[in-house]
């Protein structure tokens, strides 16, 4: 058991640190969920791509450098430590790309991955529907076969599509077999958000930004070439994403370690005035450190051929609650100024979505209880 990096890994770390120090914008970019910020974030993605830091673990033919999982975590730590911008491409890179690698054709990989990596084409996740939040199996939006044109006709509505207000393409599940029950009969589609029949309506969040949108589909044609995996197998295809989303890739420890470090800095400035925040500062720093070490354990297991399994749910509950606690403590340290908009209020509002999205923490706790502890499944309602 050790936590030591190899000479190659240390070299990679030093290079990344140096490049980031030289290139990360001195001032934080405006939010990516504003028109102005969107453009600047896309420019940043292009810069990352040029330096081969956009998708370090991907194949070289798609802008990657075939880095190991360990190097990926190292890069993420450096990325957040440097205070680099949020990744506007993250839905595509972290959620869709693993599926394209696993289930896409070579033609699809060649067509979609390079522009995804470079940030030229930004992808929006079109998962939830108004009557199906965390209950993805109850989706109602439909895909009807169009043999004549060789494709499918999409109808329905998606909501909470992250980034959809400004993104170029979307991905999501539609019910292609109306007779099939819940998990069966779903198909995974890719589609341009400016396709005929698609209407995107931004949703204003608690903080006034539009990180989410509703997407309406009215007889939208999607050719067979843009179906991912086999028709009807969408649930199976999507589940690898869901695992991914909840698991390692969505929230790298660097993010929380950097926030905990900022909190310690704030403590140094304001702690004397707010001694009651001591416990919050210490406990969230410990939490971030625990998350970092836990991730090293996960990386070790994955590198040894293991998979995430239900541990992704353990992970998700922990980081999402940690994120709220980190920012609540920051607000405590701001005293009467806490309500004034700042990096801490922005981060706080953002953190509140953590326990909700990617499967609510209630669902994650069910998964932990049932799949890890082996407790009996709950009696289901009649609708099941």
């Amino acid at each position, binding site marked *: 058991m050790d936590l030591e990096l190899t000479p190659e890994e240390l070299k990679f770390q030093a290079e990344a640190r140096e490049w980031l120090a030289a290139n990360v914008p001195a001032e934080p970019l405006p939010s990516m969920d504003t028109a102005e910020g969107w453009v600047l974030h896309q420019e940043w993605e292009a810069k990352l791509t040029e330096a081969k830091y956009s998708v370090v673990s991907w194949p070289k033919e798609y802008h990657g450098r075939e880095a190991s999982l360990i190097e990926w975590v190292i890069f993420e730590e450096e990325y957040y430590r440097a205070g680099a911008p949020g990744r506007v491409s993250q839905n595509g890179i972290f959620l869709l790309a693993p599926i394209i690698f696993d289930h896409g054709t070579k033609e699809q990989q060649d067509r979609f991955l390079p522009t995804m990596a470079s940030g030229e084409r930004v992808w929006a996740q079109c998962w*939830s529907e108004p*009557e*199906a*939040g*965390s*209950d993805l199996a*109850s989706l109602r939006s439909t895909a009807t076969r169009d043999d004549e044109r060789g494709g499918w006709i999409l109808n329905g509505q998606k*909501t*909470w599509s992250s980034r959809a207000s400004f993104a170029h393409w979307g991905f999501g599940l539609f019910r292609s077999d109306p007779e099939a029950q819940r998990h069966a009969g779903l198909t995974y589609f890719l589609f341009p958000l400016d396709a005929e029949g698609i209407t995107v309506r931004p*949703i*204003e*969040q*608690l*903080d*006034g930004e539009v990180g*989410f949108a509703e997407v309406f589909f009215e007889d939208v044609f999607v050719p067979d070439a843009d179906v991912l995996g086999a028709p009807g197998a969408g649930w199976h295809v999507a589940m690898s994403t869901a695992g991914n989303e909840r698991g390692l890739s969505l929230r790298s420890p660097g993010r929380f370690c950097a926030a905990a470090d900022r909190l310690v800095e704030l403590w140094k400035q304001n702690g004397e005035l*707010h001694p*009651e*925040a001591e416990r919050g500062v210490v406990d969230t720093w410990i939490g971030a450190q625990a998350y970092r070490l836990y991730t090293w354990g996960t990386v070790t297991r994955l590198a040894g051929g293991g998979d995430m399994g239900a541990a992704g749910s353990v992970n998700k509950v922990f980081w999402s609650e940690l994120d709220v606690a980190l920012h609540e403590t920051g*607000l*405590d340290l701001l*005293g*009467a*100024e*806490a*309500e*004034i*908009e700042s990096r801490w*209020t922005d981060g*706080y*509002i953002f953190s*509140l*979505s953590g*326990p*909700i*999205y990617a499967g*609510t*923490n*209630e669902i994650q*706790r069910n998964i932990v209880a049932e799949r890890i502890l082996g407790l009996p499944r709950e009696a*289901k*309602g*009649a*609708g*099941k």
Partner: protein
Amino acid sequence: MKFTWTDEQKAFADSLESLLSSADTVGAARAWADDDTAPGLALWNRLAEQGVNALVVPEEAGGMGATAVELVIAFEALGRHGVPGPWVESAAFLPAALGSNPLVGELAEGAVGTVAFAPHTPYALDADVAAHAFVIDGGTVASASAGERKHSVDGTRRLFTPVAGDAVSTDGDLAAAFNLAALATAAQLLGAGERLLAEAVAYVKQRRQFGREIGSYQAIKHKLADVRIALDFARPLINGAALAIDGPDAARDVSAAKVHAADSAYLASRAALQVHGAIGYTQELDLSIWITKVRALVTAWGTPAVHRSRVLGALVAAEA
């Protein structure tokens, strides 16, 4: 010993409830956040006609000479309906702070007043629309004008750095004024917490996931039961502090009420957001009005830490 509202107090609560339920308070709040203060000021005037602004103003100064119990009744209603504007400042703090200054009479009749009182309340709410704005510095009250605009997490709280003007002569009691302001804020938090719980309960009864109403899941039930329990114990603390407001334990009891009301309302806001899921995280849903307001009121008129220190100070000072 009758620790329950009198019939008159119930009637007052009912009349406010009926006024506010039929007014579009949410619309007024949304407009207020967009700097369109007209609907909010119209509501302000209607509430002034009901005497809300005059409650703790002595009768000889043109007020109602009511007790702090009526004050908390009014502020719970303001909180429940998300009414915007510098209510705590105009109707709770300033009447006590200005003492026999004749401006108190104007405030009682409905003039909009506001105040900044550092360090607890460093910015003056809605100073740009206030007829009378003040800033208090080291025990000196001065008139003030609206300086730099500051943005609160609660969009309906339009904050301004105060720019001090001439000193104002008062014989008011700033400590008593602060107690009334903190108590009114506690009552507003209770109202907001009750509203958040009511919205959450209504939502989980109709929302279905995995084939059943989500309100039938024990995790949801227990989360909301805990909110109900927390709020049930906030109300007696607030009423008790209102009764103690002129006595030796005023600071202790007001601070206890503010701490518990803030904790309970915050618990309500987190629970309401969580049971709503993603839809709670939007400005479209009215829920956002109370979620952001609670976050702001938790630290307004004394942070929880400030009030905890006051409680402990009083307990340690008391005879064993």
